[in-house]
């Protein structure tokens, strides 16, 4: 544990600290951010919480608020106090800009050092930071945490997969940080280069920035012979470092001394009891540059009830199972692409690369899952392929409670991603098939 004085804090003391920090935060945003002041004034609410439960009556912040405030409108300090800006990846619309004070960078470094320590990293480790450096928070976020922890840090950034493999091998990296789909591509590339990924000195990986499944985790662990840790964060709240799994791999500990997590029903927006699934909402407690109150992440998760064996007292959120906006409704059934991935990872003979393709057939939406035939399938016989396709379709139907057409596609024909994998391809405006 990097900061046991916080990470294993007594729950009562933690909640008192949260309430104190929350009121400080409310005072700051009311005084410095016009949008929040207007919202409180319009609703006739004082910027104050008498208890943590009272947070549920305060206004939300949504992505569009940050978009409307583009670029600096939500900053709570003058620009001269901002030492760095990052921006969201823009995968879901117009980019948003976030700013950090030197205090924010300092706290962020601590939180990412906690994250890496969660994966078992120590100053003896060599961390290859394969998240992109630049406006994206991933690269620099992990970088500062690795340096804070005292690790040897390789700022290679993303891309050039063969070089990633070469550096992993030559520099003796022991910890890899990247998106899970890119980790799979690195393993495949290593094999193509004649380097057994299991022969690399890697022993742990911190993977995040996109939803992934438990089966994909097992697959990555098997491919490299490592412990794979799920990490969570988003630029609007901080970047990576909001929550992280520990070695128990049973949910992600939320850094509750800096963030309050709520799970709300996406329809009613009221908090749900611990254990129930809903949309994740975060309030920043200590962020100075751009504090956010009850930010709706659109990520779907739940609080894992109970205590964790690792000794951390921070509550855990389950790995994100999807996004409210990625959710597909297929014949009335809610489907998240991550559920399909979970099914595929359990079937030998198919690659973990897939794409859900939406097209129009006449006036009807048609959904098809494209699945790559794995390199080891003896596809000489048509019946082998038909059996594989039938099995994939049957297992998807059984897991998702809705049947979806499955198409086998050529090995390596689905575009590989060096960042976030594009799992849903919407071709409905390209005309009928």
């Amino acid at each position: 544990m990097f900061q046991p004085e916080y990470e294993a804090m007594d729950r009562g003391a933690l909640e008192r600290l949260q309430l104190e920090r929350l009121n400080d935060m409310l005072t700051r945003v009311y005084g410095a951010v016009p949008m929040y002041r207007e919202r409180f004034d319009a609703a006739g609410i004082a910027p104050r919480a008498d208890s943590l439960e009272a947070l549920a009556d305060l206004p939300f912040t949504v992505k569009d608020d940050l978009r409307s405030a583009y670029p600096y409108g939500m900053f709570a300090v003058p620009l001269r106090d901002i030492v760095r800006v990052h921006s969201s990846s823009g995968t879901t619309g117009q980019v948003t800009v976030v700013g950090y004070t030197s205090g924010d960078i300092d706290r962020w470094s601590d939180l990412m050092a906690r994250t890496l320590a969660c994966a078992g990293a120590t100053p003896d480790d060599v961390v290859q930071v394969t998240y992109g450096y630049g406006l994206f928070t991933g690269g620099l976020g992990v970088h500062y945490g690795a340096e804070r922890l005292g690790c040897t840090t390789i700022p290679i950034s993303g891309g050039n997969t063969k070089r990633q493999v070469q550096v992993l091998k030559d520099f003796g990296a022991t910890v890899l940080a990247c998106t899970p789909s890119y980790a799979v591509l690195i393993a495949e590339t290593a094999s193509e280069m004649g380097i057994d990924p299991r022969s690399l000195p890697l022993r742990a990986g911190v993977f995040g920035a996109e939803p992934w499944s438990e089966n994909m985790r097992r697959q990555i662990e098997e491919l490299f012979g490592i412990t794979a840790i799920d990490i969570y964060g988003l630029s609007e709240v901080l970047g990576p470092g909001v929550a992280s799994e520990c070695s128990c791999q049973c949910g992600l500990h939320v850094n509750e001394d800096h963030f309050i997590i709520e799970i709300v029903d996406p329809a009613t927006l009221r908090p749900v009891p611990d254990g129930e699934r809903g949309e994740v909402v975060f309030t920043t407690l200590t962020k100075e540059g751009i504090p956010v109150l009850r930010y709706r992440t659109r990520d779907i998760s739940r609080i894992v009830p109970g205590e964790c064996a690792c000794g951390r007292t921070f509550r855990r959120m389950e790995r994100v199972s999807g996004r409210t906006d990625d959710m597909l409704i297929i014949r009335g059934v809610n489907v998240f692409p991550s559920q399909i991935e979970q099914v595929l990872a359990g079937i030998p003979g198919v690659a973990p690369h897939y794409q859900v393709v939406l097209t129009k057939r006449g006036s009807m939406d048609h959904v098809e899952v494209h699945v790559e035939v794995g390199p080891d399938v003896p596809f000489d016989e048509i019946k082998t392929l038909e059996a594989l396709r039938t099995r994939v379709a049957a297992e998807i139907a059984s897991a998702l409670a809705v049947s979806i057409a499955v198409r086998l596609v050529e090995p390596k024909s689905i575009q590989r991603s060096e960042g976030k994998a594009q799992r849903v391809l919407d071709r409905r405006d390209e005309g009928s098939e």
Partner: protein
Amino acid sequence: MSSTGVTRGVSDPMIKQLTVFLENSPGRLAGLTRALGDAGVNMRALMVADTAEFGVVRIICDRPEVARAALEEAGFGVSVTDVLAVEVPDSPGGLADVLEVLGGIGVNVEYAYCYVEPGGTAAIDVFRVEDIARATDALRAANMRVLGPADVYAVGG
């Protein structure tokens, strides 16, 4: 493989057939054959088996390993399968004779295709069976000509 291979009682070298998995989309077969052409590979036989969505292309050629490398380099999924090739007289009942021998020893044929050598009087029948060694023995016992790689890879073999 070994220079003294005859002493170990290993079976004859197998004929290597390439199988390529193809999506049914325009230009894929052209791309495949162009990749082979550019690599200087000469095909002896090509057979396409298709379903509504995908197909498999089976190829006998002069240099299977070169062909495999070229296709993989071009991004195709390739597997290599051992097949049985038999020379049968190009006359009525030729193929039936072969199949009756195989049926007689309970060997199931997964698929088969034939081609005729240019200017030849015999047809070459290619079979995918589970137990090539047993099939080979039975066919030879019935005085049929089972071909080896050298016979099928080269033109006029």
